[in-house]
């Protein structure tokens, strides 16, 4: 197996790449920047030496925060734990009173538990801890943990890795969407290349990025976003090639009513500038409960407090420059909005994915209107009650079939000779999904489009008869 340079060049880490650092099963996304200190699991180091190395290389941490590629043979072997005693509950020696086996601990790591959490597990599971007679096992484990603490593997990001990372590190940022639930969403929504997909999410961009990965740069994705602007930290972490971003469009939901009513004006005429100014101003507001909001506000306050008279002119200049900049930005936004609006106006999207902290029912009802008939949609919520409401509304309204409210149960296993068992801890819940397929809305139904409105008097008459 001689090195093939052409082949390998695709897999080399470059400066500017978005990568994922891995230790045990702890992940952290980071961009490769030379001479920049990164902190991972309470240790700091530089990624400079990773540049030029192959992805999936494991590095050892040397002093001064220097990474050194580990020899390939040095991979950890688990053979030393194979075939050990089944459990030690009835062993005489009280020192072995830790109910977690080493394998259990390894499995905990596999699950993505942090070292500290593992130590907590050890304490919780130690029969002697309460009696304070023995800590040697714990010390052993700490040693074992150290072994993991001086290595880091650099991975190419993927939907799998980022979904595992967010679920393990910051589940709150992704509405506690578990990786297997995300997997169900991508499949249930039939996400694939060359389609047109609507995404509404407040999952840090993880869901949007996963949809984009599955579309491979083919087709279009329209991100429907709430508040001041789309959140996409998670999308960046995927490290997509530049052309992937060409398929990505965005539309602020604060214009949705206008779009549906046909009153959204996206043409760049000066005459209508006032209207659009106000329209666009709405977008400038920071997201109601977003992370960035409060920080921004406090910064503005500080500037206000520290302003002096002599600096006023300078400030005015700056303001003018800012205003100009703002105008250019607004023009860009206007174009973007027009592009997204024209994609939506056909009401012929191929799929809809919703996963947010917002009440899903109004979101679903509004966005379903943009789908072609016979297309799948899927809504995620952390709370079953929200989806029960969606289900009920959809059944009342018609226009969908194959409605299914589900969740999934996920358990990992430790598979080792003579000590195979499910992992002792599992996720309590991965959230709920409502999925279904759109169908053509009956033309005679009142829920139809504007074209076929029945004359109002006739309809009233029917109501009267029924009443």
């Amino acid at each position, binding site marked *: *197996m001689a090195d*093939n340079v052409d*082949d*390998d060049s695709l*897999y080399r880490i470059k400066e500017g790449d978005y990568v994922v650092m891995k230790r045990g099963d702890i992940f952290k996304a980071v961009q490769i920047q030379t001479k920049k200190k990164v902190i991972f699991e309470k240790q700091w180091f530089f990624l400079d030496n990773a540049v030029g190395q*192959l*992805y*999936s290389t494991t590095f050892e941490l040397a002093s001064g925060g220097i990474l050194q590629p580990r020899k390939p043979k040095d*991979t950890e072997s688990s053979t030393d734990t194979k075939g050990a005693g089944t459990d030690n509950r009835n062993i005489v020696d009280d020192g072995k009173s830790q109910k977690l086996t080493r394998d259990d601990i390894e499995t905990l790591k*596999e699950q993505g538990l942090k070292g500290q959490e593992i130590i907590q597990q050890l304490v919780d599971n130690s029969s002697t801890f309460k009696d304070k007679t023995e800590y040697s096992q714990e010390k052993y484990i700490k040693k074992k943990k150290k072994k993991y603490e001086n290595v880091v593997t650099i991975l190419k990001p*993927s*939907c*799998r890795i980022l979904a595992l990372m967010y679920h393990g590190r910051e589940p709150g940022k992704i509405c506690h969407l578990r*990786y*297997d639930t*995300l*997997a*169900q969403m*991508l*499949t*249930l929504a*039939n996400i*694939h*290349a*060359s*389609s047109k997909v609507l995404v509404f999410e407040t999952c840090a961009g993880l869901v949007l990025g996963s949809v984009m*990965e*599955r*579309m*491979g*740069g*083919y087709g279009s994705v329209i991100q429907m976003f709430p508040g001041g602007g789309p959140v996409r930290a998670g999308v960046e972490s995927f490290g997509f090639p530049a052309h992937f971003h060409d398929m990505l469009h965005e539309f602020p939901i604060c214009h949705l009513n206008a779009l549906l009513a046909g009153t959204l004006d996206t043409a760049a005429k000066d005459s209508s500038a006032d209207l659009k100014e106000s329209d666009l101003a709405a977008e400038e507001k920071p997201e109601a409960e977003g992370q960035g909001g409060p920080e921004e506000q406090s910064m503005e306050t500080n500037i206000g407090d520290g302003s002096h008279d002599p600096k006023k002119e300078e400030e005015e200049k700056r303001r003018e420059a800012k205003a100009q900049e703002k105008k250019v930005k607004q023009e860009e936004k206007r174009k973007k909005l027009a592009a997204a609006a024209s994609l939506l106006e056909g009401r*012929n999207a*191929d799929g809809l994915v919703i996963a947010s902290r917002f009440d899903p029912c109004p979101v679903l009802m509004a966005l379903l209107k943009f789908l*072609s*008939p*016979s297309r*799948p949609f899927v809504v995620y919520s952390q709370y079953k009650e929200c989806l*029960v409401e969606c*289900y*009920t509304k959809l059944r009342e309204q018609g226009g969908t*079939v*194959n409605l299914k*409210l*589900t*969740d*999934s*149960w*996920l*358990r*990992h*296993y430790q*598979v080792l*000779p003579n000590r*195979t068992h499910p992992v002792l801890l599992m996720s309590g819940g991965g959230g*709920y999904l409502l999925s279904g*397929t*759109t*169908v*053509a809305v009956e033309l005679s139904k009142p829920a139809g489009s504007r074209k076929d409105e029945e004359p109002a008097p006739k309809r009233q008459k029917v109501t009267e008869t029924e009443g």
Partner: protein
Amino acid sequence: MSFVEYSDCIRDGDVAIVYLGHESMTPVKVKQGAQTQTRYGVIRHSTDLIGRRYGSKVTCSKGGWVYVLHPTPELWTVNLPHRTQILYTTDIATITMMLELKPGSVVCESGTGSGSLSHAILRTIAPTGHLHTVEFHQQRSEKVLEEFVEHRVDHLVTVRNQDVCKDGFGVSGVADAVFLDIPSPWEAIKHAKAAMKKHGGRVCSFSPCIEQVQKTCLALSDHGFEEINTLEVLLRVHDVRTISLPQPDFGPEPSAQIQPDSTVKPPQKHTSIAVKTTTPPREIPGHTGYLTFATKPRT
């Protein structure tokens, strides 16, 4: 129509899914002049299907109506003719993500079986990927290829009729991912490794029995695979219902002065309240199989 690209309208030669009602569907090969019998009467393909939009409501000869749906791998999974045990969408979704499949991926699969997973793989790796699928059973391999042609995905797949444990996948050094659903997956691990790219990739083995999992994990470890991880995923369905909850009758309420502090509101006799809830089906799948994933490192 194709299983990897949506069309708006039904054309001659398409495969369409006729939706008859709750959890009742049937696949139909659309053919000029043909007709399909349903419990609601006859559907005439030339007039009722061809040229109509997917998702349309079609009125059958007896006056009943159906919806005609565009096929997707997920609809196919619940409607395909079973020639073997098949994989269902919950496992398929997990496999697709954990194997890191995406447009352009090259995948090896064995056995092909009834093609339930194959269609989902093809949907995900199109338009630039390729599936090499190996099926031991000749009749089955021929049948599934026929379906790939009908579903307009045959340009993305190579079907091989051979024994994967003896003869491997017929390719080497090309696969990003390998999937095994065979009785003795441990015998195919070396072939999986050989089929995969030098840089590495992901492998998955599906087995119903734990002994198969144990042997497979050992074989994966022996062949240098890393991040070996076995999991099980089960779908839980919640049926939305409104239930009527009878209120107990405690007899005539004593006057309020006697118990002004009672938190129990006066129950009305023989009344009941409506509660919106969900109930699980009486019986659900308790096991499909264990999914074992692993990473092939650079070799």
